[in-house]
């Protein structure tokens, strides 16, 4: 009896040891840019029986038993993020153990029995499952007027007196200098790495580092590896959106982020200096920098300095240094559209200041998703 108790204790402890060890390193393997793991040039099709749906961030996995000669082998089909699938009306019961499915996708680079599922269909009906469509709300044919506060200042969030709503669906998912036309995916992965030097006016070392990250298919992105915040313009290039909460009494705007680790940034409108405060943000430099803003007509102009170098400030891996400062311009041109412009001035990484801009869409009544990068692989 005593021996059994000890054995049981030892088993529990070993399980705990394994759990803590895996939990501490698990995020290292979590990643969103899929081409670091899957090879887009290696198409593959499998047919089999679903054994389990593992519904967790950052990507779900559908496990499938596939006949292989006289044997049966198990494959893992990796697919989109649960939040995105939920937004497309799918859940963890959309496929059930025992369902026969046909999967087309791209195979893992390491040759293991894993694929990224691009097309998953029920074998008997041919019905596609876990499809992801464009859920961007339709804009009205005639632009609705900009909501304003009683003093006439544009409201950056919900119409005064109402609540809810997020900015999302950025028309650009990665920083590229305005006027440059090149192909890249939503993760900022260039279709042609030879285009790298066109993306922004980088110094030699910065260009080499950017190319290196691109050649590694963005697998080193610290936002996915280590939950580092999406500082800089990156916070406005996520489909998970953001909210601008105006605290007019305290002369500040809270930027609440739906991406990364779901934290916030403050833009001060009280003419303060951009210096650390002992009782506040004296830790420096910062992931979000120090932001001060002022209205110029209907445009909110925000100047930010004091960044650290512990994060990627855009999808795709453009480097920055602690010399980075940026000027952002937020112009709500209608109720449903925000124009965003950012001028990057980083003499540590770039040869001159440069500007990128894009638009965002208003999704009225919606709240930010509860999506935390800390959930990845937990």
């Amino acid at each position: 009896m005593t021996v059994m108790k000890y054995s049981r204790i030892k088993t529990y402890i070993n399980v705990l040891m394994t759990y803590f060890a895996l939990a501490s390193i698990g995020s290292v393997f979590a990643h969103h840019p899929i081409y670091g793991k899957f090879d887009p040039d290696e198409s593959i099709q499998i047919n089999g029986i679903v054994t389990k749906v593992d519904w967790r961030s950052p990507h779900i996995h559908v496990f499938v038993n596939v006949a292989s000669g006289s044997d049966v082998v198990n494959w893992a089909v990796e697919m989109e993020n649960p939040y995105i699938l939920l937004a497309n009306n799918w859940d963890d019961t959309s496929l059930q153990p025992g369902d026969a499915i046909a999967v087309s996708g791209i195979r893992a680079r390491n040759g293991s029995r894993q694929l990224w599922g691009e097309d998953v269909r029920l074998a008997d009906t041919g019905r596609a499952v876990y499809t992801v469509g464009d859920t961007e709300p339709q804009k009205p044919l005639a632009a609705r007027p900009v909501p304003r506060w009683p003093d006439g200042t544009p409201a950056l969030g919900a119409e005064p007196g109402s609540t809810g709503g997020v900015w999302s669906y950025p028309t650009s998912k990665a920083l590229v200098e305005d006027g440059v036309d090149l192909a890249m995916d939503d993760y900022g992965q260039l279709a042609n790495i030879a285009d790298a030097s066109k993306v922004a006016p980088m110094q030699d070392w910065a260009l080499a580092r950017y190319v290196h990250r691109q050649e590694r298919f963005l697998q080193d992105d610290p936002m996915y590896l280590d939950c580092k915040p999406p500082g800089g313009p990156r916070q406005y290039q996520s489909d998970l959106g953001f909210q601008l909460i105006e605290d007019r009494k305290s002369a500040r705007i809270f930027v609440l982020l739906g991406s990364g680790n779901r934290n916030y940034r403050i833009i001060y409108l009280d003419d303060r200096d951009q210096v650390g405060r002992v009782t506040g943000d004296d830790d420096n430099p910062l992931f979000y920098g120090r932001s001060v803003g002022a209205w110029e007509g209907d445009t909110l102009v925000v100047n930010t300095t004091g960044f650290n170098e512990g994060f990627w400030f855009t999808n795709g891996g453009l480097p920055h240094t602690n010399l980075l400062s940026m000027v952002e311009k937020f112009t709500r041109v209608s109720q449903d559209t925000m124009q965003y412009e950012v001028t990057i001035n980083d003499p540590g990484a770039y040869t001159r200041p440069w500007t990128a801009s894009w638009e965002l869409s208003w999704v009225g009544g919606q709240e930010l998703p509860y999506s935390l990068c800390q959930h990845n692989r937990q």
Partner: protein
Amino acid sequence: MFQRICSVLLKGASLVAVSYFFSAATNAQEGHPLKGSWIGEWSGNSDLGEFVLVVMDWDGSAVSGMINPGTDNMGIENVDLNPEDWSVTIESGGYTIEAVIENLELPSRALVGTWRGPGGEGNFEIVRQ
């Protein structure tokens, strides 16, 4: 038996501690790859000892820094970084270090190569902290 349980607990605690050590050690530095504090060895240095600490910074146009601050206080006179192969040459106090950045995208990247100078010559390896 108490000792055995303690032993197992200790092993578990050690594993957790090691895991957290490594995750704490992964403080990213995503800017200029030479910036930061580096610790390692220049093997066989009869003048300054084998332990070496290098601190480097980047001002947008040049790398500056110091070798063994607090003891030898050797200012770095020149640093050349070739981004094509990530080779680096560091000159300081009559010493020349020729090395290559390894594991560029890891926070704990390394500079590995050779050194020569008043204390002789030998292998050089420092790891960013």
